[in-house]
């Protein structure tokens, strides 16, 4: 039981402590890093537990499912929690090198842990309305983190972010209402059983559509991703790195969960088309940007397209590829945003035109950028290569040739984007005397840690692929999940 409760209890308690403790950076960071480290340990423990003993569930309030709220972790949930906790720890460490003001005035430690609470809750809940609540927890925490600086770009883009995300939440809430009105339950496992009864799936059609729209917006799918590139480039780097790694991925997770557990019938062509359009628009828009975090933000959109393509293929291989891609992407993208902060610090800004000469500052920073950038670009043997390899293979085997072709073409444009940042920021002679700011040891350690993970997911792709594959198998055949939640009676 405690394996499931700890990933929620730790961030909650950490956030409360951070709120209660004095707003001094040292104290805050001590709490933040300790909490993040404990969460990471708990998450790894959960993953090992699920890996060893199968799906675990705990009934909150001791009320039997499907009546109370069930927390449940299968391999997908556990893996998502683990990798999120890993980047959470990296961001917590990185934040120690952020300007004091960002941390102290913005209550960064408190809100980032509430964000982690929402993220972990969303991954671990087995209940639809409870999922809505965790989404709100995460969303509100992200609102506050986004606008905490009070700077013009942050608060104005915050309006767009808040408005568009509230719309998504409204769609979600309506979906909950519709599903309950049609099926009379909120427990996901129970809903699956009810959906398998004759006539239920047709009745739940509108609810499925609402869920698709809600999570499509949250995940950043074409053509409803506007909120993402509008807001991600504005807050502190630690904040946008946390967003980049986790927020859209919770939407992706929800899509994966809903459209395997509840609605396993393939959506097929339209979703493949949306995925391809997401990949293409994201990468094309990224190629035309000249601001580090705007480039990276549009690439998130593009990568979401890859992930959703895996889901849209509706094959076991496709879903496994999507999961692998997600795990890789969380690590790599978080790192790129963090390194973006180092670049901005070393070069005095984020506009490519004004950056330059960073490679002269030493091999270290160059490597810290090169590893996640090459990984994102799909250069072997880094994690992104295998992610793309799996996905292209899955597309070809599903005979989605256009999608496979798009995946290849988008890969080339990703290489271009990363090479562009490299050429401009690292290689071009510095146009003006850049401030010789210190990068901060904590920040470097955090980025280096994530680099190691990226290389590890690449070299050790077998382990991660096995995990993704097993997770996909659990999604494909939910019997174990249903038994864990509902007991043997199901």
């Amino acid at each position, binding site marked *: 039981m405690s394996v499931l409760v700890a990933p929620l209890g730790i961030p*909650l308690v950490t956030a409360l402590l951070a709120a209660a403790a004095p707003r001094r950076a040292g104290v805050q960071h001590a709490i933040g890093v300790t909490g993040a480290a404990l969460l990471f340990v708990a998450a790894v423990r959960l993953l090992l537990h699920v890996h060893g003993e199968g799906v675990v569930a705990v009934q909150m*309030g001791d*009320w039997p499912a*499907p*009546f*109370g709220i069930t927390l449940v972790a299968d391999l997908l949930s556990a893996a998502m929690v683990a990798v999120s906790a890993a980047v959470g720890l990296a961001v917590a460490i990185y934040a120690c090198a952020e300007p004091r003001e960002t941390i102290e*005035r913005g*209550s960064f430690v408190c809100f980032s842990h*509430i964000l982690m609470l929402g993220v972990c*809750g969303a991954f671990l809940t087995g209940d639809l*309305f*409870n999922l809505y*609540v965790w989404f709100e*927890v995460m969303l*509100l*925490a992200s609102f*506050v983190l986004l*606008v905490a600086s*009070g700077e013009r770009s942050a608060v104005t883009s915050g309006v767009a972010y808040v408005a*568009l995300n509230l*719309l998504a939440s409204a*769609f979600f809430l*309506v979906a909950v209402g*519709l599903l309950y*009105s*049609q099926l*009379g*339950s*909120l427990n996901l496992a129970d809903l699956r059983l009810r959906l398998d009864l004759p006539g*239920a799936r047709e*009745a739940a*059609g*509108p609810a499925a559509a609402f869920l698709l*729209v809600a999570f499509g*917006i949250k995940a950043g799918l074409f*053509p*409803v991703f*506007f909120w993402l590139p*509008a807001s991600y480039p504005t807050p502190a780097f630690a904040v946008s790195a946390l967003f980049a790694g986790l927020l859209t991925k919770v939407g992706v997770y929800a899509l994966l969960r809903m459209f395997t557990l509840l609605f396993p019938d393939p959506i097929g062509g339209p979703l493949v088309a949306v995925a391809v359009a997401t990949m293409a*628009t994201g990468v*094309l*828009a990224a*190629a*035309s*940007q000249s601001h580090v975090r705007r480039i990276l933000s*549009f690439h998130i959109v593009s990568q979401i397209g890859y992930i959703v393509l895996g889901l849209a293929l509706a094959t076991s291989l496709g879903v496994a590829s999507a999961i692998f891609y997600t795990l890789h992407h969380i690590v790599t993208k978080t790192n790129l945003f963090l390194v973006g902060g180092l670049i901005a610090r070393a070069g005095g800004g984020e506009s490519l035109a004004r950056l330059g000469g960073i490679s002269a500052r030493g*091999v270290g920073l160059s490597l810290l950028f090169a590893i996640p950038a090459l990984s994102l670009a799909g*250069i*072997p043997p880094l994690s992104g290569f*295998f992610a793309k390899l799996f996905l*292209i293979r899955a597309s*070809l085997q599903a005979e989605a040739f256009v999608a496979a072709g798009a995946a290849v073409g988008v890969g*080339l444009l990703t*290489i271009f984007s990363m090479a*562009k940042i490299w*050429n401009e920021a690292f*290689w*071009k*002679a510095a146009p003006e005397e850049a401030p010789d700011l210190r990068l901060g040891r904590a920040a470097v350690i955090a980025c280096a840690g994530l680099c190691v993970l990226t290389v590890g997911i690449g070299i050790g792709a*077998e382990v991660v692929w096995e995990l993704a594959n097993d997770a996909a198998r659990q999604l494909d055949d939910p019997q174990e999940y249903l038994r864990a939640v509902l007991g043997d009676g199901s």
Partner: protein
Amino acid sequence: MEWMVPFVFGVGALAPALHTRLRVWSGPVLALVPAGIALYAAARQPAISDGAVPEFRASWIPSLGIDWAFRQDGLSNLFVLLVAGIGALIVVYAGAYLREHPRLGRFYAFLFVFMGAMLGLVTADDLFLLFVFWELTTVSSFLLIALDHEKEAARKAALQSLLVTAAGGLAMLAGFILLVDAAGTSAISQIVLQGESLRAHASYPWILALILLGAFTKSAQVPFHFWLPAAMQAPTPASAYLHSSTMVKAGVFLLARLSPALGGSDAWAATLLVVGAATTLLGGLLALSQDDLKRLLAYSTVSVLGLLTLLLGLGTPIAAQAFVVTLLAHAFYKGALFLVAGNVDHGAGSRLLSQLGGLREAMPWTAAAALLAGLSMAGGPPLFGFLAKETAYEAVLEAPVGSWLLAPLVIGTAVTLVFAAIRVGLSPFKGELGEAARDAHDAGPAMRLGPLVLATTGVLAGLLVGPAERLLVAPAASVVLQGEAPTGLALWHGFTPILALSLLTLAAGAFLYRHRERVVAAAAPGMAFERRGPAWLWDRGWELGLAAAARGAHAFQNGSLRRYLVVTLGVGFAVVALSLPLSDLRAAGPTADTPIVGIAASLLVVFAAAVMARARTPFLAVAALGAVGFGVSLLFLMFSAPDLALTQLVVEVLTVVLLALVLPRLPRPAKPKPARAVAIGVAVLGGATMAGASLVAMAGEPFEPISRFFEERSVIEAHGRNIVNVILVDFRALDTLGEITVLAVTALGILTLLRRRRPSDAEVQA
């Protein structure tokens, strides 16, 4: 052999640190590594030529069947010898050539990464493993081309080569996936045994096309050849190593490696012959007019790469032999000539033929190397290049198809290469001292070593043709052929027509050289074509594509929140609307009662909302919103939800207070914007959809809701009679815990925002 790659990578990682310690000695010391590997490969070569094939195989990613697998057959080991042997010379050379360069340490690192990747590429026995190394050579080439990355031209050339080869690489990856799928294994040694079934496979055309794309881009075949001359921005040692003797051969290596699997079909032959012929001819012609030594060498390299492709396309035993001999000969003489060019540049201060001349006395060693290598390039006996030309002639003359076209084409190209060879190998050194070479001096020993050794190797290989054939050529050719390689390579076959052609070629080349001014002038328009050719198309394509992407991105994510909302809502409701079962929207739900107050409350909501739609001032809108809330509260009360009614009522009061506090402070528009048609459309769509959805929601309840459980247990087990409250604090308390967390976060967030207010006000007033 499996240790070679990690070992070389490791040395590369340590190289910069080593360089700062050893300074001038770093080159020779580091060169011991590739030299050792070359010796190791040489020691194994006799056994390999007798048919031994050392193998290593360890599982890497079993679920994909990807192994850490290496295999050292005749073809692999030939390449290992080249890569390591030439690598050793290059490292020594670079240590001296780039002695003053601030980034020599990094250069070593990149070079060793490249070397390791190349060694892995040629020995890998797994397609995906091969691809890993393939991409690493691309990346290291990118890094090496722009070693002088302050120069924009260098950065551009690096990016161009990266994109061209990466585009091909990605296509090739797709081809590999299909190939592995078709063959059922990723082990190359297994794949090459399945030629027949693969050629009959349904996806064979795709496999072939995609893999050829990868090989052609890497080996600079027309129309992708343009990146190679541009890559001459790289420092000369890198050009000599990557862009003539090793990396650019990776493409033809792959073709040779896979020719037993994919070759033998008409499509294979036709494509390779056409592309190879076009490449060799174009490269030869474009080389004619070059003035820059390195660019001249680059175009002649393109030409030879085309010839190699063409030979593989022929697919005959003699062609396979010609392929190996040409490849070897080219590696020796072209490597040497590039280093010569570097020495000339270094010693005389220019690489332009028009400024060079008479360096013979100032640079005797370099001149000697140039002469020997140039002679080999020209195909003069008794050098190895002569053998290469003879076997190539033989192969095209005996071609199964189209020899009437191929033979003149290959011979004609050979003439251009003779011309190029004389210009590179001879003209800088003879005649009067060129204007740029007043105080020329020869390079030091470290920079003489490379060209001399390579040039001499060409001579020795020619003289010792017997052992060379038995030890090097035949084992490699038999791998390409998957069978017995032809024998009988010799300098002297008697007075054969081929010998006559060979001598004729030399004579024709010499004749051209006598009229070199006119030849150069006549060939010059070719460059005009080249500048408007594929390179131009490629660059323009990117430019236009990116500009279009920028326009598209800007038009879509156009900075209008209004637009974002329209699209998000429009798309969202359209998707949902499509899912509504319009046919069976049963309007009448199970609830029969229609209390008057309920109707009144609904109408109040409708009316108040309508007022809001028309409200021009916040005051009216807030009042109407309050009325909506009151109506909703009334509905709750009517339909058995007293808790909701109470909460909604209080919340409504507080909402009005909140709005009344904030809204008046917001800026007001000069004049209200008119509602746009599209907005009205989306609003109608959304309203209708939601009305429909609510009918769906109210229509069906075929399943027993879980709340029956709450009704049964509320009093007995949870000790509460208000079931709604019991749900909130007991049955589903986790939701509530989350909700109060949300509330707390919101409050803290608002506090944070409010605290921010004051300084900014001060700013405004200041």
